[in-house]
């Protein structure tokens, strides 16, 4: 629980900045979807066809900053799992593909939509996200984002939909 709380308070890390319309086939290639099931191994293939340095160099807490429609394409959840497992602390994008955005919530990976912040943040800089305060702090200034809806917060606070559902099953 302390870990969850920590995750939800302050996220601090280096920025990996990408453009518009990055699809799930380059985040996690389709050819691995039925042959790779260990999340640790998934992390090795994260962004393989987009940025071959990413999986090697990503550090826990690093933040992906992207343009519009991040994660469009397939519904594959591995495209979130591989980033979560690689240590990504949050994704800030101009917009998220619908299923991708849901998958983020379900894997307790913070997905923030804020176009102005995306334009302002530079690749490689260190930024900080204050989740409770709804603030993004970067070299160019601070940007705010709206609080998460209660149901979304419940799932993220539980550590993801798996744990959330497990608790619901136990309550029954």
């Amino acid at each position, binding site marked *: 629980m302390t870990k969850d709380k920590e995750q939800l308070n302050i996220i601090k890390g280096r920025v990996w900045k990408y453009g518009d319309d990055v699809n799930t086939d380059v985040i996690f290639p389709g050819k691995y979807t039925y042959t790779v099931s260990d999340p640790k191994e998934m992390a090795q293939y994260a962004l393989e066809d987009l940025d071959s340095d990413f999986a090697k160099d990503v550090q826990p807490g690093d933040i992906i900053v992207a343009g519009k429609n991040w994660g469009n394409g397939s519904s594959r959840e591995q495209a979130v799992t591989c980033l979560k497992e690689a240590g990504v602390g949050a994704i800030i994008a101009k917009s998220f593909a619908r*299923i991708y955005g*849901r998958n983020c919530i379900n894997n307790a990976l913070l997905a923030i939509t804020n176009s102005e912040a995306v334009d302002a943040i530079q690749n490689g800089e260190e930024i900080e996200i204050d989740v409770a305060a709804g603030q993004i702090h970067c070299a160019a200034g601070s940007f705010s984002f709206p609080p998460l809806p209660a149901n979304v917060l419940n799932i993220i606070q539980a550590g993801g939909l798996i744990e959330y559902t497990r608790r619901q099953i136990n309550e029954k």
Partner: protein
Amino acid sequence: MPQTFSEKILAQKAGLSCTTPGQIVEVTPNVALSHDNTAPIYGIFKKMGGKKVFNPDMHAIFLDHAAPAPSTKHAENHKIIRQFVREQGIKNFYDVGRGISHQLMVEEGLALPGEIVLGSDSHTPHAGVMGAFGAGIGRSEMASIWALGKLWLRVPESLKIVVHGQLKPGVTAKDLALYVIGDLGNDGGLYLSVEWHGEAIQALSLSSRATLPNITAEMGAKNSYIPPDQVVFDYLEGRAKRPYTPIYPDANAVYARVVEYNADDIEPMIAAPHRVDNTRPLSEFAGTRIDQAFLGTCTNGRLEDLAAAAAVLQGQKVASGARMIVIPASAQVYLEAMEAGYIKTFIEAGAIVESPGCGPCMGNHMGVPAVGEVTISAANRNFRGRMGTRDSEIYLASPEVVAASAVAGEITAPDTINN
């Protein structure tokens, strides 16, 4: 309050009188669709502490993505699913070779007007061809539905697409779909519920219509709906798994956006690598060399599509140095194509006919291209690496253009092939 289709169906299923966009509702789907990913979902379900599924009759499970299994790993995956289906008493199970989930949902009378289909597959909006609310969800969400029987959904804003007039001869629903995506962009329907209206839509056969909600996933839409009419009701006669009640949007419903097209303006289209919205008229690509032509998938693997391709291939040969792969979307399509003589035409033309399923669409097997090769495909995605090879190119087109290009060995219009 006047409601769009999605506002109305989500209100009804959530037991509310109305809903507004942005509202979060909890619904129990009529159908929970999963495919080869049923095995990993089962893993998540167990991790959640799930033992018996909430309602075995809610499930529809299809082995289509890598079917029959191309490797031991895939085969083990299928084995786990067959075991799960037996243990849980799931009746709507379609084993390898029966066909692609979205096609079978329609053929088997599982996708019904006024119902909600949630599927762990991004092309679940396909069910909208029958007037259902079909939306793709993730694996954990599917496992949670298995356990709890419900899921939260955000009520989407709606996009109304109206297509006036009639498509010209030689222009297909695929061309219309590519034209619209090219116009609106791959995020033109992001988060939105898309409704297809207008006389050009109603004039299409059920098979042609299916291409529209299928490919709307490529615009980021949540679901995609065609108002069900007599064509749908006739098709469902004796086929529907349950009695159903259609749901229609109110005439004065509020849409986030209304877009109108004239069907006359549309000509045969191509989506060039590596984006589905990278669409331009076919004429601009004439002469582009191809190595492989692929006819099949949930987008264009139906009898009508095979008939259109067979008409082009009749008495013709696939160009030397090129190859053509044909995969009927279901066993039923395969059988009917055989009875109609299309399969014979394909084989005589030198094409390869493979067993029903998704085939090489997402690069699992049955026609993965080599580095540098070019594929013209009747599928719905041309992303880099989609067919299993990063440095290869995929052009998307209608079945007749795929067939004509196979004969010419380069992208070409069907009317250049003499029959």
